[in-house]
Structures are given as structure tokens and as C-alpha cells.
């Protein structure tokens, strides 16, 4: 990968495909076009053709091409993946379907469990058994594998998941089964659990492996099609993909382990926010991405987005989901930890039976859309409320591309909210705005106060179509006082791809009480991790002196099932290094959970190694190149900022009107694809390509 060359970022979402090309001078071109769900690669090819049609960029000058994709997630959501069979230990055919027995919401008699991706008839038991130490209890019987393969052939299975008990500690039987599959059913796509996710807990490992098997053929076909489109334009740079963990890697990783890429798209925005923070010298950030149907929050601490160990695809949107699983297809893989809430510009406002005002999770979507779009929607949305309040331009959005009907917005709010509640129109609209903020506050709390972090210690980076509309009021709710609006905030996730680095995460399971750990054995496992990382990084073409290795220990008190990751400086573990890690663990436990026990046994559970390249985009693309649309003359309009401020005549300016000199709110900054609200008492200024809002004390 050559950083000096053009770089292309492609972010394919369910609705839009965003492309960004960085130029040699640091500027960038962006393009937003509708996605093509029948074949997502088509929009990419179309978009690239448009970016290259004027001949200003030489395809051969493209040094890298980074891609975030949604086909894996979509295959899961629509059930359109491969026909998968599961080979598992005798006695445990139903682990996948039993799952963890819980449902993600209390008291709902009408709930439905997600259908298992492999029906019972395609789950086959293999005669074999390991114990928890990896010793063989029952040797593998090859005949049981061959018999299963025979049945799979009759059923036209095209992908097989292999998950045997305790394979995370001894994969010998899984390896032998793989060999038998290759020998007797050479055409089958294979996913084996010790490769996909070598960690304890059979349901979690089985589910992850099955998800991998389900999306693998789909992802392979898709990536081949994308690569064909790229080659067709004459681009020679290899295709890189974004993984759920926020690191990029050659597309081969997505072909072998697509389960590691299911959160490819959302990860891009978080990585962009982290990179932006680094340029600005802000290490602690809450990334807030608000679109049309959902809002997502992610915590970035010390410059690193926080990771979670597992997530569920298709579980619906609910902050409580983080406590109660069972609603979706579980994938255990390092994933940027996002809390998602069903509140976006299109979310519908309604009155419940107890007379409370509610917002979402139902959305007016793109069709019929908010009432103010005049596309047939009549029910009030968050966007309608924002139009009534004067936050959004009452005449048009997208610099005139989209006309807005203030009347329709007022009518919808009046009929469905203000009337029934006996409120003034503006009070009702303010209520909708505030309730949406409250719901999104829940997402921010989920990634901050729930894990012992105070939101007030973080700056907010607000992006997505509605991020800057709600950023300031939401920040006030959540107790955050600094808001940063990045350049091109409407396509910021795509921009974020340009800042991602090549990264691989490796794990080795090691169970020891830390004070009794066998350092020699630990170091053997560690050395193996370092060797594997070296091979992977060489494969990515990262030079030796451009690699950054971060070694961490997952520690916990004996008996706990959730660990804290404690970084270790040296690659060689000595008893002194372990003692210091244990001491650090107590401190971290105190910080996260409010107590620690310095006399208690601390256990090592995993060794983890993150290997990443130091190479990446070094500067922000110049915002001027990103903006389109004509500059509008400064005007003003009345805006309702809540009961304390009331209606305030507010100046409306363009982004280019902002300077480094702070201006006082209230103020509205309009640009092509976003509107920035600066409430009374706040200050706003432009800084290194971003817009920064500072809320007043209060």
C-alpha cells in the first residue's frame, strides 16, 4: 500500500453507496449514489466509472482501495445465504437451536426466536469427544463423518460448519474432520470453529462458525464481482476490506472469515472519528452517528475505539439488547462496540396508551418519509419536528434539491402530537426532539456510564445525516460539552475508511492463576502469536519497521466470566511483568466496577496480540473539495430552543462563513448534506477542517 498515491474508499450500506477518492494534494472527491441490493457490486462499478470518467485520475495511480460492505449482514437478515450443514459432537446436535434459552425482552408471549441457520435435519453428530483439558475421551470415528457427508450430498449442501466440543483447546479432531471433508466432498466450502473462533463456550463458537459458513460463498462471489469491476477500470491496487474490529486487511481475510466482517460498515465511522480525534489531539471521544432510522454511539478512549467480544446480527435495535441476548445470530469476534437505538430523522412520534410521548423505533423510512418531504408521509417524524422548530430549513434541504413543506410538518405534529396532548405546536415539536435525544442518550450511556466512564470526560464527534442537527442538544442531555462536526459529515463513514490501518488480532487461550503462571509455557504461546502475526503482516506487505505490536492479557478475578484487557509493554513475560499486570488489573477493576480486592486470586484467560501497520492517511482531506452546492446568502429565521430560551431569531450561515474566531449561538450552519445547530449559550468556530461547538456551563 502506498500512501502517497490516490486512495479510494467505498462504503456500501443498505440504502446508499458512498465513494471517496483522495487526491495527491490531500483534497478529495466524494460521490453518493443509491445502493443496488440485487447486486451491490454494480453501484460500485457505476460509481467508480463516474469518478474516473473525466480522466483526472489515473487508475494506475490508485495505491489502495478500502471497502466496507454489507452483503454478509444482508445475507443473514434476508436468510439468503449458503445451504449449510453442521458437523458436531455426538450428543450436541441441538446446541445451535437451544442457544442460551433467553429472550431479549421480558414478558412478551408473542416473541419468536430466530430460526436456526442450519435446520435440525442438516445438523449431524460425529462420534468423537475431547474433555476440557483437550484429552481424547472418544476417538474420532471417520465412518460417522463419511456417513454425514453422504447425507449432505443428497441434500445439496454447499457449505459446512464444523464445531466440536473443546476444539478451542485441542483442534485435532476438527482438523481430521476437515481433511475427511476435503477428501470425500472436495467442492464444499469449509468453516471450522478452531479457525473461525477458538474460544470456550460451545453455543457462541458454533453460532459464529455457522454464520461464517452461511455467508462465506455469498461473500466470495461478491468480492470476485467487486474485484472484476475494479480491474475493469484499470485499477491494480489490491482490494482491502474493513473488519468489524476496525482494522483493514486484504480481501482474502473476508473470503476465509467473513464472520469477522459483519460490522464492516459501522466500524468505518468509529475509525474515522478516532482518526479525526488524533489529528485534533482529542484522545477521548464519543462518536455519534445519526442517520434516518437509527443512531449509533461508540466510545473512543486513548485514541482507540472500544471493542466488544460479540454481537448479534438481526437482533433488532434496543439498548437493552446489550444485556439480554437471543434476538439475533450471534457472532463472537472483536467488534467495535456500538450501541444502536432506533431513533433517526425518520423515526415516528406517537402517543402511547398511558399518554406518554414516544419516538421510534418505527420509522417512516425513505418512503413515505417524513411528512415534510411531501412524498405521501402524514405521520410526524423527528425531521418534521426539527422543521417546525426551525432547526431545519423550512423551504428546502440539500441546497434546494429537496423541497420541504413546513405546512405538512406542522399538520402532522399538530394532529398526532400537539392536539392529543393539549400542547402548543412548538412545545409538541420540542417534545419530539427532546424524546429522541433522551432515547439517544441511552445509547451514549450504554457505551460510557454503563462501563464506568463519565460522558463529561469525552468530546462528541457528531456525523451522519442528522448528527449535527441533534449533536448539541443531545450532548447537553448526556453531559458532554464539546462537539466536533467533521468535514463531509454526511459521508463521514466512507471518509473513515481512508484512515483505517491494516490490522490483525490474534488470541491464544491460556488459563492460569497469575501468581502461579508458568512463564515458560506462557512465553511459548506468546512466541507463537508473534510468529503468526509476522506471517500475516508479511502477507499484507507491511515492512518490518512499519509494524506496531500491542500485547495484552485478559485478566479477571477467579470465577468471573468477563475479563479486563491489560496491556503489557514487553513481549517476554516475566513474573515481575505479570505482577505489574495484576496490580494494574486491580486499578482497572476499581475504575470500571467501583471496587477491587487486592488479596484475591487473579486469573489469566487469554493472551492477545494486535498487529497493525503504522501506514495510513496522514491528514484530513480539505473540506472545500468535499462541499458542493451553491453558497447561500446569510439569512435568519425564528428557532424554538425549548421552554427556557423560547423562540429566538437565529442567524443562518454557511460553513465557509465560520472562522477560528468563536461566534456565539444561537446560530445555524447550513451546508449541502447537513445542518449544524448551535444553541443559545454555546459557541462555535472552525478549526482544521472541522466545526467545533462548545456548550455553555449550565
Amino acid at each position, binding site marked *: 500500500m502506498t500512501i502517497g498515491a490516490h486512495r479510494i474508499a467505498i462504503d456500501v450500506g443498505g440504502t446508499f453507496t458512498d465513494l471517496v477518492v483522495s487526491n495527491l494534494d490531500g483534497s478529495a472527491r466524494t460521490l453518493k449514489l443509491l445502493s443496488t441490493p440485487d447486486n451491490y457490486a454494480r453501484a460500485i462499478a457505476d460509481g467508480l466509472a463516474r469518478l474516473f470518467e473525466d480522466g483526472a485520475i489515473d487508475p494506475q495511480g490508485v495505491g489502495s482501495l478500502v471497502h466496507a460492505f454489507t452483503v454478509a449482514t444482508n445475507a443473514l437478515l434476508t436468510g439468503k445465504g449458503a445451504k449449510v450443514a453442521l458437523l458436531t459432537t455426538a*450428543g*450436541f*446436535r*441441538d446446541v445451535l*437451536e*437451544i*442457544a*442460551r*434459552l*433467553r*429472550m431479549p425482552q*421480558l*414478558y*412478551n*408471549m*408473542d*416473541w419468536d*426466536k430466530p430460526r436456526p441457520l442450519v*435446520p*435440525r435435519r442438516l445438523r449431524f453428530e460425529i462420534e468423537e469427544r475431547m*474433555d*476440557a483439558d483437550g484429552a481424547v*475421551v472418544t476417538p474420532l470415528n471417520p465412518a460417522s463423518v463419511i456417513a454425514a457427508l453422504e447425507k449432505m450430498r443428497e441434500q445439496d449442501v454447499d457449505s459446512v460448519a464444523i464445531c466440536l*466440543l*473443546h476444539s478451542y483447546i485441542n483442534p485435532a479432531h476438527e482438523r481430521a474432520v476437515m481433511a475427511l471433508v476435503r477428501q470425500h466432498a472436495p467442492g464444499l466450502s469449509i468453516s471450522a470453529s478452531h479457525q473461525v473462533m477458538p474460544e*470456550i*463456550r*460451545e453455543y*457462541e463458537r458454533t453460532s459464529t462458525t455457522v454464520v461464517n459458513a452461511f455467508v462465506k460463498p455469498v461473500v466470495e462471489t461478491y468480492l470476485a464481482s467487486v474485484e472484476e469491476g475494479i480491474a475493469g477500470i484499470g485499477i491494480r491496487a489490491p482490494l482491502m476490506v474493513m473488519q468489524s474490529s476496525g482494522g483493514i486487511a486484504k480481501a482474502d481475510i473476508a473470503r476465509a472469515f467473513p464472520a469477522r466482517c459483519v460490522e464492516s460498515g459501522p466500524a468505518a465511522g468509529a475509525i474515522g472519528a478516532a482518526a479525526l480525534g488524533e489529528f485534533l489531539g482529542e484522545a477521548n471521544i464519543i462518536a455519534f452517528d445519526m442517520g434516518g432510522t437509527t443512531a449509533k454511539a461508540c466510545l473512543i478512549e486513548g485514541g482507540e475505539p472500544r471493542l466488544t467480544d460479540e454481537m448479534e446480527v438481526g437482533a433488532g435495535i434496543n439498548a437493552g439488547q446489550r*444485556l439480554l441476548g437471543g434476538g439475533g445470530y450471534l457472532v463472537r469476534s472483536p467488534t467495535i462496540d456500538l450501541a444502536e437505538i432506533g431513533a433517526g430523522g425518520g423515526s415516528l412520534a406517537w*402517543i*402511547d*396508551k*398511558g*399518554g*406518554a*410521548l*414516544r419516538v421510534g423505533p418505527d420509522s417512516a423510512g425513505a418512503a413515505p418519509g417524513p411528512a415534510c418531504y411531501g412524498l405521501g408521509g402524514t405521520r410526524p417524524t423527528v425531521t418534521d419536528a426539527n422543521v417546525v422548530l426551525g432547526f431545519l430549513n423550512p423551504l428546502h434541504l440539500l441546497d434546494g434539491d429537496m423541497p420541504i413543506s413546513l405546512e405538512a410538518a406542522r399538520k402532522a405534529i399538530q394532529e398526532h402530537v400537539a392536539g392529543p396532548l*393539549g*400542547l402548543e405546536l412548538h*412545545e409538541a415539536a420540542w*417534545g419530539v426532539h*427532546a424524546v429522541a435525544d*433522551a*432515547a439517544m442518550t*441511552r445509547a451514549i450511556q*450504554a457505551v460510557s*456510564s*454503563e462501563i464506568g466512564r463519565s460522558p463529561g470526560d469525552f468530546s462528541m464527534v457528531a456525523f451522519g445525516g442528522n448528527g449535527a442537527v441533534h449533536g448539541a442538544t443531545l450532548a447537553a442531555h448526556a453531559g458532554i460539552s464539546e462537539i466536533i462536526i467533521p468535514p463531509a459529515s454526511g459521508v463521514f463513514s466512507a471518509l473513515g475508511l481512508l484512515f483505517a490501518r491494516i490490522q490483525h488480532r490474534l488470541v491464544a487461550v491460556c*488459563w492460569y492463576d497469575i501468581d502461579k503462571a508458568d512463564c515458560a509455557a506462557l512465553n511459548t504461546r506468546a512466541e507463537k502469536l508473534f510468529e503468526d502475526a509476522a506471517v500475516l503482516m508479511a502477507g499484507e506487505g507491511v515492512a518490518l519497521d512499519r509494524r506496531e505490536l500491542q500485547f495484552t492479557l485478559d485478566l479477571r*478475578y*477467579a*470465577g*468471573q*466470566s*468477563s475479563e479486563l484487557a491489560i496491556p503489557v509493554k514487553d513481549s517476554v513475560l516475566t513474573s515481575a511483568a505479570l505482577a505489574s499486570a495484576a496490580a494494574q488489573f486491580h486499578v482497572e477493576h476499581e475504575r470500571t*466496577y*467501583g*471496587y477491587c*480486592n487486592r488479596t484475591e486470586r487473579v486469573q489469566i484467560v487469554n493472551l492477545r496480540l494486535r498487529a497493525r501497520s503504522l501506514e495510513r492517511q496522514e491528514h484530513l482531506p480539505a473540506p472545500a473539495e468535499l462541499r458542493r452546492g451553491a453558497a447561500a446568502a446569510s439569512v435568519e429565521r425564528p428557532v424554538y430552543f425549548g421552554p427556557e430560551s423560547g423562540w429566538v431569531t437565529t442567524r443562518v450561515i454557511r460553513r465557509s462563513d465560520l472562522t477560528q474566531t468563536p461566534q456565539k449561538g444561537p446560530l445555524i450552519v447550513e451546508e449541502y448534506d447537513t445542518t449544524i445547530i448551535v444553541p443559545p449559550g454555546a459557541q462555535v468556530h472552525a478549526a482544521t477542517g472541522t466545526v467545533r461547538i462548545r456548550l455553555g456551563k449550565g
Partner: protein
Amino acid sequence: MAKDAIRLELMKNAFAAIADEMAATVIRTARSSVIKEAMDFSTGLLDPQGNLIAQGLCLPVHMGSFPPTLSTVLEKFAGDIHPGDVFALNDPYLGNGLHLPDIFVFKPIFFEGRLLAYAAAIGHQTDIGGRVAGGNACDNTEIFQEGLRIPPLRVIAQGKPDPVFFDILRLNVRVPETVIGDVQATIAACTRGERALMTLAGKHGTDAIVADMASLLDYSEALTRAELAAFPDGTWEFEDFLDDDGFSEDAIRIFAKVIKKGSDITVDFTGTSPQVKGSINLPIAMTQSSVYACLRSIMDPALPTNSGFMRPIKVIAVSGSIVNPTSPAPVAARGLTSMRVTEAVWGALARMLPDKVFACGAQGDFGVTIAGYRKEGRPFVLLEFLFGTWGGRPNKDAIDALSSLAVNYSNTPVEIVEREQPIRIEEYGFRQDSCGAGKYRGGLGMVREYHLTHVDEAVLQVRSDRQKFRPYGLKGGNPGAHAGNVLKNLDGKRSALPGKFMRTFLRGETYRAELAGGGGWGDAYARAPELVWQDVLDEKVSRESAARDYGVSISDDGALDVAGTERLRLARRAAE
């Protein structure tokens, strides 16, 4: 009301988020599988009067138990409650507790010198001492055998832990590291709740917070009454039975009468059997909680769960009956009776709302404890509650493998059990044909097999039921299959065991728990043949059962035999 509507939604979210944040703290810091894997704990926020304001996303049947337990603390310590205090209790008779393994902790939350609320948590401890490890034995005959009784106590005084309490607890339980760690996890959750509520109070002011709590209760009550008012008025009865109490052969009747009038509802258990000798007596606080969970489940899932919801609900349970026992009746294994109470109440509710309520599932009747000492003398306790499935529903099938709606328990991964205990799980899966047939079938029962390894012997203690009375079907649906217990001895010989037993478990023996199946809903002969065929292809239902129970013929090559099916179904109609 109008502006309150907005404020209410804001504060409802804020309180619920605090309770959830507390729950997350418990999960991340707890030690035992029962809490961290199976999630047998709850968190809540209560107002100074002891009304429940918000409940964490935890265990439904714990919901109603915070107010009566906190009331015993308030009674004892009125005027003597200070910042930094933590109170604990577990006793069913002195503290309104649920049974001894459930240790409650309460922490008062003060802000600017004013008592604002209580943070509360319950954790099911892996052991609480007493004659049988695990705290769930069925054959205790008085509560004194069941373990350490904790009356309402101040266990942390203004930030200073009471060493007497912690020393006594440590000495009385078999796995002190686990139990003390789990109690600390619940205390940590309360501290987290305290911090979060103080932050909220700092932002909104204490007066506002107190007022918001009151309006949230009124709001829930209004929502609940609106739901109740929409249901028909009338009286509906239902009875279900427990096989026995482990001592006598006598069946135990649970009789529930639901009386609904306007926006009030009463559940009257008069007619239920008297308290029994064995330890399946259900303390009144848990009887009430069980009723709340059932009624809550027929209402809008989004309704905030707090004391306001409980106001229109009245529970009548005669003192001295199995659903309101008097001291010193044993209660350790009362979870079983709680399950049956919910099933009787749901049965009555199904008569009130036939289009809404499911048939009987196979809930958490099974409690399995395997305990002993490893070679080096270190004690181990495996404690598991096994949950099965739901019953068929008025508009669709049951869900196979799902916890009870009243409990929402999880399972412990086989690999975790095997890593932490000298036990190998030989099988965990579905029982073919165990589902109650119906137009919408019940869920499949499950099996779990335990094999003792590494140690020469252990104590095996099982609480189970449904060997005589099967989970009921509704509207002509069949009942689910019986439950069973099977022991495979060292010679490989299998023998059936009763529902409730305790015995020595030898290395190399295998104990097999067979959970009941869920009841079906509606006439099985009206079930779409295609669905029966799919179940046969999945080997959930055998060809024999398809023909016998559903009148569906599957040919030898596995295809759906349409003509044969018609013949079978006609023949039955003719026979009727």
C-alpha cells in the same frame, strides 16, 4: 399531564438505564455460573417509601419481591439509615425473602442530605450452608436445615463493612470465594446505581426526581388499568398439580381463581393445598411475584414495570397454605411451586383471554445439584436449573428451547461446566416426540446428562416434577410428555428415579434429566400436514407420532403422503 408526557418519557428512560447499568455490573463482576451464565439475579431502584421504580432487564419473577423485603429493612432501621450503608437479608419469615440462597442487598441513596431512593439487588448464591449443598434440597423439613438465615442486617455501616457478617457468611458456606464474590457483585451494582442516580439528581434537582418517581408510578398504574379495563369482566378458575412433596405420594393442588372487574384484578388461591412437609413451600412474596409476572405477560411489553403496575392487582393466599407457609416450614426448593403457580394462573388467564395465552410449557422444575470435594479437599458445587420450552400458542407453535417467561433464565455452557467442575455432560438436546401435539404444537422437552469424572463420589440432589401430571394443552391440544429421571450405574444398567431425590453419585455413573414437553394448542388433526412433515424431516417428531397424534402420513421415502393423510384424518372424524 401534557408537558409531563415528555418529562415522563425522559425520566422513565433514565431510571430504566440505571437499573440496567446495575445489572451489567453484576454480570461482569459475578463469580458463579448461576449468576454470570444463567443470570439468576435482579436489580432495581426503589423510592424512599419502598415502591419499585425500575427493574433491570433480569428475572421477571423477582420483580414483586423488592418492595416487601425492603419494608422489613425500613421497619427495623427507621430513622437510622445513613449514606454509605448497605443492608442485606435472605430470611423468608423475618425478611420477606424468597428462600435462603437469594441474598438481597439494599443501598440507600442520599443526595444533598436527602434520602432519594434505594438501589437494590438480589443474587442467587451457589451455596448458603445447611445440610445439602446448593441450597435447593427438597427434603428439608424445617427452615433451620436450609442454611444461614440472615434477618434484615446492616452489613456495611457508612462505608465500613461489618466483619461479623462477612466472617459468619464465609464460614457457613461451602464455596466462600464464590459466594462472597457474588455478594460483592450485587453491592457493586448498588454502588453503581447510587452514583448514577446522584448524577441525575445533580442535573435535575432532588425535588424533581422525587416528583418524577411518583408520576412514573401513576403512569404505570394508568397504563395497567387501561389494559385491564379492556379485558372482559368475570371469574375464571384453573387447577394444576405438583406430583408430590418428596415425602408423601399425595398430589398437591394449586388452585387459582382470577376475578377481573373494571380495572382491578384479583388472583385468589383459596382451595390450594396446605403447606407440606418437604421444602417446596412458596413464601408469600414469591407467590405475589409469580402472579405479577403472569399478569405482566398479558400486557404491553413496553409498559414500565414498577409498583404502579402492581397497584390494581390483589393476591389472596391463605396463611398455612403451600402458597403462604408459616414458620418454620422449609422453602428451599420453592422455585418448583412458583413455576406451578404461574402455570395455574396462566391457565385461568387463558380462559379469560383464549386468543392470547399459551398452553403449559416445561418451565424450570428441574434443579440439579452435584457437590462434593476434590482430591485436594477443595469443595465444588454445581448448581443448575434446567429450563425447557413453551406451550403452543393461539396463533403459532411454541418455541423449542426457551426459558420460562416468568424467569428468562439462561443455561450454562457445557464447556464451562466441564472446565469448572469434575463433571462431563454427555448429552444436551431435544427429546423426539415429547411435544404436546396440537394445531400449534408444544415445544420439545430436553435432556441433559451428567457424568461424574475425576472424583470418587459426590452428592446428587434433584428437584423435579411432572412425572404424574403432564403440562396441559389448551383447546384440545395434547399435554406434553412426562418428565423423567434416569440413572445409569457402573454396569450400564438404567433405572428410573423419582422426581425428588438425593443420593450418592459415583464416579462413572450418569444421571439423565428428561424435561417434560410443552402442551399443544388446538386440535392436532387440524395442524397443517406440511408443518408435521417438516417436523418429521427434522426428526423432532417421528413418523409414528405423525400418524398417531396428527393423522399425517409420511411415506417410506420421507415424502408427505397427502392421500394417506386424508384417509387418517377422515377415519378419526368418522370414529368421533
